[in-house]
Every structure is written in C-alpha cells, then in structure tokens.
C-alpha cells in the first residue's frame, strides 16, 4: 500500500515554519549562535528556536504547565496538519518522538527542590515522553492511536517508519508522525561530558571536526493512504518508499568502525523500496560532526555506494543536532529537496576525512532530485534510513 506524504511542518533555529526554513537553507544562513540562555554553562554554540515559551504559549493558546518540547512539537504538528479535520471514516493516529520529553520543566523543578527553594510540583507531570505527545494530540484533536517512540537521535525517523508500517498493514489511514526536542541543560551537559560538544562551529564530514552543536526544534509529516486522500483531497507532496531500522550492536554510544548497523539500515531500506543505489539523487546524512559518527557513516556510504556516492550533505550545521527531532526535520528537508529540485549545502566543511576522502556538497544547488535517502543514527546503536520519492 502506497504511503503518501501530504503535509509537512517544521520549527527550528533557522525558521518558525517550512517557508522560513527553506529560505535559510537557500541563503546558507545557519541558526547556530552563541547563546546566553544557558549562560551559567559558559560559552555555547546552540541552535535555539527564536521564540520564548511565553510567546509560544500565547501563539498556540495552550494551558500551562506544558513543556517546551510539547510547544515546539505543536507548532510543527499544526503546520503539517493544516486543514485536516477529524473524520470517522479515516482511522487517524499520531506518533511523536522525543528524547528529553518535559526535561526542560523537570530540571527547573528538581534544581529548585535540591536548592531548598520553592518548587512548582505541577511541572513534573510534563516529564514523561507520552505526556509530550498527549498534549500535541489533544490540541490537534487526535485520539486513539497516540504513541511516542524514544530511540535517542533516530527517534523521529522511527516514528515516520512506524507510521508507514501502520498504513502499509492497513491499521491506520492517516497518521501524523514526527519528533520534537527542546534544549535542556541535561542534554548540553550530557554531550559535554562525552567530550563531543564542539566549542566551535560544528563541521560535519570535515577532517578537523570535534563534535556537535546542539539544537532544538520539531518536524511533523502527515502520511496518508489512498482511501484517506480520496476523502481529504490533500495534495501529495512526496512518497515514502523505503524504511529500515537496524542495530549496530557495537557499543552503547559509539558507532562501529565498519559502519555495520548503518550499512544494514541503508541496504534494507533500498531493498524495501526496490531501488538500486544508483537511483538515489541526494543523501541527507546524519552527519552530527562527531569524529565517530561521520567516519562510521562515511564508511557505510562507501560500503553501499562504492565509488559512486550520490551528492550528500548534513544539514546539522544549520539547525544544530536536534536529537529526537532531527529525523523529522531532515525528512521535511528531504521533501523540500524533491519539491524544489535542490540539494542543500554542508556548511563549514573544508577538508575531507583522511580515511574516507568523501566530499559533501558545499553549495545550494539546483539539480533534478527524484529520490532522497535520509539517515538517522542514535545511541544504543539505533540506525534508521528513510527513502523519499517524487510523486
């Protein structure tokens, strides 16, 4: 059964909607800036969404307490959902994903409590990941299949994949899928503790890369089957034709040097889409800018595409690494690449990685784009690949 994408929504450091994101991609404008909000943590380059919680709450008209993760998710979900309405004839669900859930609120509560200050206990009910999604579902008006995945940095890719499988197996007709994560001290300190937070600009696929810059944001997509589209009359934007998840089973955080899990994910997604590697027009790489990921992913790309590597880039130097949201944000970018026949540049790249010598695209290029492959790899060796096709 065909899985069609009929809606996209996004909020990130480079824009509050799809249009703004596309303009920033086009003008090579990164959203990563030196940040003052986490100032007690010293100088930090972060991809922060340029809207405060108060502004988001007011704009969305939602009740407190609500985590920033839900707020960001709701902006992107509403944009993707657009004019869709509840319909008893269309079995509808939502699958979101997050790694931090309401941690932005929990850490505020916990810190106050630990310091013996007055702490607002109502904040803690936003902590669990499921609550993040329930807030979005309830504001949009979806009930029934309401689910949240959490597989670190591949979460949203997995949410998109699960949505596609539910449509393919005729369990749902229409499903809103995506992911959302807000910046938190927890994750910033976490990546710093792993010594993979670059104090300078993130440089994906560059020999001198030192680590990631964190970002925040959300991406959502509407997936529909034929029956649903006949009723909604929604316009098809792209097709989701391939998906796969594979475990690297190498190390809890590091990727294997032979790119085993990544290679499996890419190969299985191609097999499922019944496509040869040569059919891929553009790869939106995971490319976090950590020494380990970019090398392992480069090896995996060489394993599959040999010496004919399609144009590829990581867009994380634009948005920062948005963790659980990144797979959905980059799925939206993949759909934009198909719609506009463009390839996005890999900012801050200068020198190829010594071992693999792969060179990502560095300019915003107009080119016929028919099929886009997008990678998302997470902690726990959780590797996912999605393949999008022009309609």
């Amino acid at each position, binding site marked *: 059964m065909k899985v069609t994408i009929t809606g996209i929504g996004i909020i990130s450091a480079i824009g509050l909607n799809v249009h703004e994101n596309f303009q920033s991609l086009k003008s090579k404008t990164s959203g990563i800036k030196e940040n003052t909000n986490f100032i007690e943590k010293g100088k930090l380059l972060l991809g922060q969404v340029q809207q405060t919680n108060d502004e988001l709450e007011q704009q969305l008209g939602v009740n407190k307490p609500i985590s920033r993760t839900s707020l960001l998710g709701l902006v992107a979900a509403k944009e993707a959902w657009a004019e869709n309405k509840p319909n008893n004839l269309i079995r509808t669900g939502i699958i979101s994903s997050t790694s931090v859930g309401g941690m932005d609120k929990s850490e505020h509560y916990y810190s106050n409590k630990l310091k013996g200050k007055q702490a607002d*206990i109502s904040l803690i009910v936003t902590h669990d990941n499921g609550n993040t999604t329930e807030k979005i579902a309830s504001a949009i008006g979806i009930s029934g299949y309401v*689910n949240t995945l959490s597989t670190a940095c591949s979460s949203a890719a997995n949410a998109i994949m699960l949505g596609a499988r539910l449509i393919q197996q005729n369990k749902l007709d229409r499903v809103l899928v995506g992911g959302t994560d807000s910046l938190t001290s927890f994750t910033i300190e976490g990546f710093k503790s792993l010594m993979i937070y670059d104090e300078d600009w993130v440089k994906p696929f560059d020999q001198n890369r030192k680590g990631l810059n964190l970002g925040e944001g959300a991406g959502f997509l509407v997936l529909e089957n034929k029956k649903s589209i006949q009723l909604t009359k929604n316009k098809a934007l792209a097709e989701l034709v391939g998906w796969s998840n*594979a475990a690297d089973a190498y190390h809890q955080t590091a990727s294997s040097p032979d790119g085993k899990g990544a290679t499996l994910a890419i190969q299985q997604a191609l097999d499922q889409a019944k496509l040869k590697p040569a059919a891929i027009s553009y790869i939106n790489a995971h490319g976090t800018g950590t020494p380990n990921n970019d090398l392992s992913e480069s090896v995996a790309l060489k394993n599959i595409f040999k010496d004919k590597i399609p144009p590829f880039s990581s867009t994380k130097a634009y948005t920062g690494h948005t963790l659980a949201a990144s797979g959905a944000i980059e799925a939206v970018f993949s759909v934009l690449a198909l719609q506009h026949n463009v390839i996005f540049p890999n900012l801050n790249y200068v020198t190829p990685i010594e071992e693999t010598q792969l060179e990502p695209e560095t300019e915003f290029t107009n080119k016929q784009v028919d099929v886009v492959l997008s990678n998302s790899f997470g902690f726990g060796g959780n590797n996912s690949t999605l393949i999008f096709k022009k309609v």
Partner: protein
Amino acid sequence: MYYINACSSISHQSSFRNKLWMNELQPLSGLSTLISPDYKEFVDAASLRRMSTILRMGLACAKDCVQQAGIENPDAIIVGTGLGCLTDTEKFLKNTIIISGLIPPTSFIQSTHNTIAGQISLSLKNHYYNMTHTQNSLSFEHALMDAMLCLNEEKSSVLVGAADENICFMEELAKEFNFSEIENKLTSGASFFMLSNTKNNTTKAELIDSCAIGLNALTNEEVVADFLKNNHLLLSDIDLVLFSTYGTQKLEEVNKLVHPIPVLSIEKYSGYHFTTAAFGMHLATEILNQKENLFVQNKAPIQRILVYNNLGNKNIGLTLLQAIET
C-alpha cells in the same frame, strides 16, 4: 497467529525462573521487595556495577526468554517503558546541578529510554529491528502491537517486553501529590516474552490481539465492545479479566464494566508502575496453563483472558490471550 513461546518476569513475586511461582503468589504488602536473581549470570561484573535496576531486570528477562525459547537471535527486539531509566536520569540531573566541572558521562549514556533495548541488542549481538515505545501507561501495549506488526511482516520471532523502575524520588512525589493509594506500593518490574508466528512445544498461550487507545473519546464500555467485536468475540467468551487501574474505587467500575465475568487485580500482585500490563500478560499466560483453577471458583478451565489496563485515566490498553489447544 501470534504465539507466546517464553515469558520471564522479575517482580515482587518469585516469578523469575520458577515454575511454581503461581503457587507462591502473595498479595503485595508494605514489606515486600523486588525479588532479584543473581545478575552475574546474565551480565559481566564490570558492566553490572554500572547498571541500574531497570537495565539489570531488562537484560536478565531478555536473556531468560531467549534461553527458554531456544532462539539465540530474535528477528526484532521491542521494549516498552513508561518512565525509562529513572535512576541514571536522576543521577545525571543531580550532577548537572551540583557539579560545576566535568561530569562523568556514564549516567547520561544510560539515561536514554532505549538503553534497555540497546543493551539487549549488544549482549545478544543482534543487528535486527530495535525499538522503544514510551507512552506512559500504554507503553507495553504499543510495544506489543509493534511486535504483532513485525510478525505480520514475516519476522518469525520477536522479543518484546516492558520494564520500569521505582526511585525514592517517586515516593516523595506520590506523597506530595497525595496519591495515598499507591504509597508504599510503587514498584519496579520487568516482563519479557518471546512471540512467534509458529506454535511449537514451548508455546504457552496464544496472543489473539492487543490494542492501545490514548485520550479515549468513547466510553470504556464501547472500547471493550469494539475490541471484542473486531476479534469476533462476545464478553461471554471471556473467562477472566485481569485489570490494572489506579485506586480501589475502580474495582466496582471494572466489575460493572465486564459483569458477570470474574475480575482479578494485577496491581494486587505487581504493585504500581507504568507497565504492569506486561506482568498481567505473564500472569494471564500462567493462569491459562494452570491445571487447577485457583482464581475462579466453580468454573471450568480458563480458556480466554482479557488484560484490561486503565491505569491512565483516559488511556485504555486491551490484550486478549487464549489457551493453546492441546
């Protein structure tokens, strides 16, 4: 068809690797504790030292299932967890507040929800589908539904389970929120299963169906009726309902909902955490294999059990099991 070919639980009951645990089943008292096996058998000593309760329980149950079913490498590993790795999350959170210099990374690494499934794949050297569902009280049902999708996709064996852990902080919250009914009854627990699309000599029960309804817009009666109807069954086809709800006042509600089918509380034996429905599924599987009917008097052998999970007010999970035909 979905078959349960292995079950493994670590709980406040003597459920782990004990064939007779049903005979030793005791309602939870304020004094009961988690009954943990010797984890050294499942995890090497160096890793074990760093591992929280949820990781230990998850790994031990997963490995036990793999051994019971005689399947070294399942085609998928799927875990549900309501709140994830709380011990490591709290530890790292506390460190970000009290330590001003460099913080040790271990608890951050182990704080992500998919650490359980990831560690299982690592320890089994398993390269297949690996997923983690975190939908509070419906996390297990969502994992189970994903496992069913996998079996429909012609994967032949799926390791699926759920785990949640209790930390002291939860007790403090329960007090602050005035959740008196769960005070001293918050627990940790893990239950894992090997599901397969083929029946063999280890098969313990058949899983007919499972569903999870979030933010339920219908009445609970309608949800149960729809679920049974989709499976071409009537309420009268069910012999026993195992239920998971918060608060004793709900007992009457459940009784009314499924009257005259007998009901049995899961929390009475598991205590409270977000994925007690998984323990309920293990309990149901055992009851379907009991020669003597311990739970329902004056009733022929139990053929079908419905696990009714209404732990979250607006969330309903339903799981239907059937005895295997001998």
